[in-house]
């Protein structure tokens, strides 16, 4: 060959052109009648309870959720561990204290744009207050809507992540 192409030595059967083409065409034709693998997103969604192919992992780490106690107050005691551990430095916490000496957060804001969703905040929280959520639909109309304040974090209802369980490393 003029431009010095290396010709692979293959068994004769495999360099058959017509037969190979027909075989390929039969394959593609068969595929036309297979079941479709597409998940049609807005109609079908991955959920945590989903047992099918589109199940979303319970260890998924999405946007945060602050849990509340029975009186509707946030469980956070403003210990300051989560802003300390946060590698992205996205948690803003200003602690306050009430008459009984209970600490509570005056300001608790998470900048979801800066967050890297490592889940350390959930892991470090002694009160099981802040959690990363099993949730992925985060679209907003403006950038400022992505700084979640305490009220917003508390009002989220999506399931929270189980994170990685060392006793069950494969999630079985």
């Amino acid at each position: 060959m003029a431009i010095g192409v290396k010709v692979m030595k293959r068994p004769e059967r495999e360099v058959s052109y017509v037969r190979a083409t027909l075989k390929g065409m039969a394959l593609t034709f068969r595929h036309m009648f297979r079941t479709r693998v597409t998940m049609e997103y807005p109609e079908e969604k991955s959920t945590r309870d989903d047992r099918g192919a589109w199940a979303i992992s319970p260890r998924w780490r999405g946007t945060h959720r602050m849990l509340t106690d029975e009186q509707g107050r946030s469980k956070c005691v403003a210990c300051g561990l989560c802003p300390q551990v946060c590698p992205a430095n996205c948690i803003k916490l200003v602690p306050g204290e009430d008459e009984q000496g209970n600490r509570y957060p005056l300001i608790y804001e998470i900048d979801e744009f800066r967050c890297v969703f490592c889940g350390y905040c959930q892991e470090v929280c002694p009160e099981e207050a802040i959690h990363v959520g099993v949730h992925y639909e985060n679209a907003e109309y403006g950038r400022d809507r992505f700084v979640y304040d305490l009220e917003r974090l508390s009002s989220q209802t999506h399931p929270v992540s189980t994170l990685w369980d060392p006793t069950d490393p494969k999630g079985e």
Partner: protein
Amino acid sequence: MNPELKGFILLSVLKMLFVFTVIMVGVALLTLMERKVSAWMQNRMGPNRVGPGGLLQPAADGLKNILKEETYPALANRTLFLLAPALSFIPALLLSAVIPFAAPLPLDFDVGVGPLGRFAYHGRMPMVVADLPIGFLFVLAISSMGVYGIALAGWSSNSKYALLGGLRACAQMISYEVAMGLSLIPVLLLSGDVSLGAIIANQQAGLWYVAPLFFSFFVFLISGFAETNRLPFDLPEAESELIAGYHTEYSAMKFSFFFIAEYANVVTVCAMVTTLFFGGWDIPFTHWDERGGLLQTLLTAGFFVVKLMFWIFFVMWIRWTLPRFRYDQLMALGWKVLMPLALAYIMVICVSMYVVEHPLGVASPVLRSLALAAVNLVGIVLVFGFIDRGALLSGSGRRRSAAPRLRRAA
């Protein structure tokens, strides 16, 4: 102006409008079909968001392309850059003028239309925009014009990828035009006429030409793929090597025009395959369709569309089955396989036609076609046996003896 001429002009304009509309709408829908077929072959759904089942997707695409910004490369040759999409688009559309899409319609009218005077038409109106006596010669001439658009697009863009794409398009067109032209000579020999109407009539009398002229069909089909720059021969726009080839620098509607031209070319090549080798609008195993009448015209048009759609589907099927050829393989296939094959086939057909007609004295077109079909059957076994040995494209017999005889691993 006499009423007959006016009637002829009126009918021609109507046919033009009809064919133009059908081609443009058809091309739009073909873009959707291509995406759907590709999706199905890959176990996907394909576009299904716009309109019922995605039917309005082409409209959305068109709207988007019209509203998009047109960009011009700073150093492009403006005139040619603007001209190129039109140059590839127009020949593609021109070709649709000579394809007969239904049985001739007997018409007999003589009506006065107010100040315009009388319109008259008597006789069988051929259902083709221009019933050219030069038939497929026109198709061969015009189809190779399309490459000017591509080559000029590549050159005027002043971009290396576009230039390489245009260059490849030219080389490819030259290589395959020869094989294509040669593959049509047996058709000419058998029908004795280049007019497409006569070729269809000939096939109705005998067999569809795919049987007596199988190799012509084979070579024509492959060259057709190359002429329309479809995979596996889409080297002018090979994404993996040339970004987008000749239309790298084009945006918005000008890019769309190349797209429309490509699909219009696909339609034309498929229509040519149908007309030359699959009886055009002929309904097989009956002569009822040749008698003429409105019902016959409509039904034959339907049959033509069915055959056409099969070949268009076939083109897409091949596209999503085969990978792209390497450039030297493409040239080797054109010059070393298809051209000698077409040339040898002309000789075979000449000899067998002479033998069938003179020493054997077979006069019936059906028997003659059957005799040629038998010759073809032998040829199919020989040629595909030979190609299947893998000896042709590798270009040397050396490898055959050197190749280890491997057992296929089950």
